[in-house]
């Protein structure tokens, strides 16, 4: 992406931004986050299909924010995360410049986050077919089968919280798992603790998760935890007209409609 490298270099040279966040080559054929603070470092910027981590998880970090104005190379899921974060007052036009990477791999420099939103809203969040099939299969199971499925799938989880660290929406300074007065989520890696951790995680991401799969990609054990958030996305569609991150609209789970439909309240 010559365009991206060139623009990043210019921005750093002009001092418009203090750091450009993007991808660079890592070890073992992987890519990693690059924080370019010198114009020369911008030459290391790359973009290809291996760049799957959600870089938006860095823009809420105090140590990154402290550098000054940030520019970020943002794919569609990253842009979605940026909008959601802006709507939660975690970033703003004052400290962030978005260098969008379109699905066609071209670069668009956005004037502000409102412009990012206008662009992103051209695309719906769509659940990939391979996941829809999996979800469908789970739906067809009996509750007991689903229970066993999850107990089994979650059992290797040893609560490293890599999924949390990779998620742009998990920016709380103190996460519920760290509350121990009382202890909300049992710490040891046993079935109950795993179940509660993943339930808690999923529900806190309902109406916020942008379906980037960064959590799943980060998990060293390949736990299909993104199925939970995908299910929440489907529910949002079914019950509340769907989820699209927005700096203008109300947050899906902190608003209501007087005529929200339910069929289970007695």
């Amino acid at each position, binding site marked *: 992406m010559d365009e991206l490298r060139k623009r990043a270099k210019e921005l750093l040279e002009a001092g418009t931004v203090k750091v450009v966040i993007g991808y660079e080559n890592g070890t073992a054929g992987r890519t990693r986050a690059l924080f370019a603070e010198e114009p020369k470092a911008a030459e290391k910027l790359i973009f290809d299909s291996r760049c799957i981590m959600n870089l938006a998880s860095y823009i809420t970090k105090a140590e990154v924010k402290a550098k000054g104005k940030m520019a970020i190379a943002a794919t569609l899921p990253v842009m979605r995360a940026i909008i959601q974060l802006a709507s939660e007052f975690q970033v703003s036009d004052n400290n962030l410049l978005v260098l969008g990477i379109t699905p066609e791999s071209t670069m668009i420099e956005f004037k502000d986050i409102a412009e990012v939103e206008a662009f992103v809203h051209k695309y719906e969040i769509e659940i990939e077919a391979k996941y829809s099939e999996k979800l469908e299969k*789970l739906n067809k199971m009996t*509750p*007991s*089968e*689903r*229970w*066993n*499925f*999850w*107990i089994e799938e979650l059992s290797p989880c040893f609560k490293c919280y890599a999924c949390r660290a990779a998620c742009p929406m998990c920016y709380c300074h103190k996460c*519920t798992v760290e509350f121990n007065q009382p202890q*909300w989520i*049992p710490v*040891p890696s*046993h*079935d*109950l*603790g795993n*179940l*509660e951790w*993943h*339930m*808690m995680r*999923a*529900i806190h991401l*309902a*109406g916020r998760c942008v379906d980037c799969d960064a959590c799943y990609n980060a998990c060293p054990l390949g736990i299909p935890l993104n199925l*939970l958030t995908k*299910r*929440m996305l489907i*529910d*949002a569609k079914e*019950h*509340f007209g769907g989820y699209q991150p927005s700096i203008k609209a109300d947050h899906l*789970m*902190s*608003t*209501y*409609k*007087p005529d*929200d439909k*339910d069929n*289970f*309240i*007695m």
Partner: protein
Amino acid sequence: MAEFEPKIVAFVCNWCTYAGADLTGTSRIKYASNVRIVRFPCTGRIDYMLLIKAFDEGTDGIIVSGCHPNDCHYTSGNFHARRRWIMFRSLCDFMGIDIRRIKFSWVSAAEGAKWANIVNSTVTAVRELGPYDEYKKVAKKPVKEVIHG
């Protein structure tokens, strides 16, 4: 062995359902004694984590109840709660938690009889389902592991 007596925990708001349950008592309506009521300011305060903790503690069924729509003491707490219930219930179902054991209702301060019905029907339903062994099996493990190494 004695017949299984389900343990039910009810999470209710102070202003409607708790008052309704009080009315059930003062009207001397008899109803199942299996229920333990936990009072909250509003359904909007009933965090789903608390419901899950009730299962940890060995409850077999849960009732969540508050003011009817438009009657919430804080105007919209129950509307917010309803949204969360919709999501929470679906997530529970997706994870295989038996949602037949979690009942939601609106009971006003004037509906003493309705409260008795809700409790009775929940107790009957949960009695039929039996003890929530599936969850208890999972919930018990940590106690052993943590305390006894």
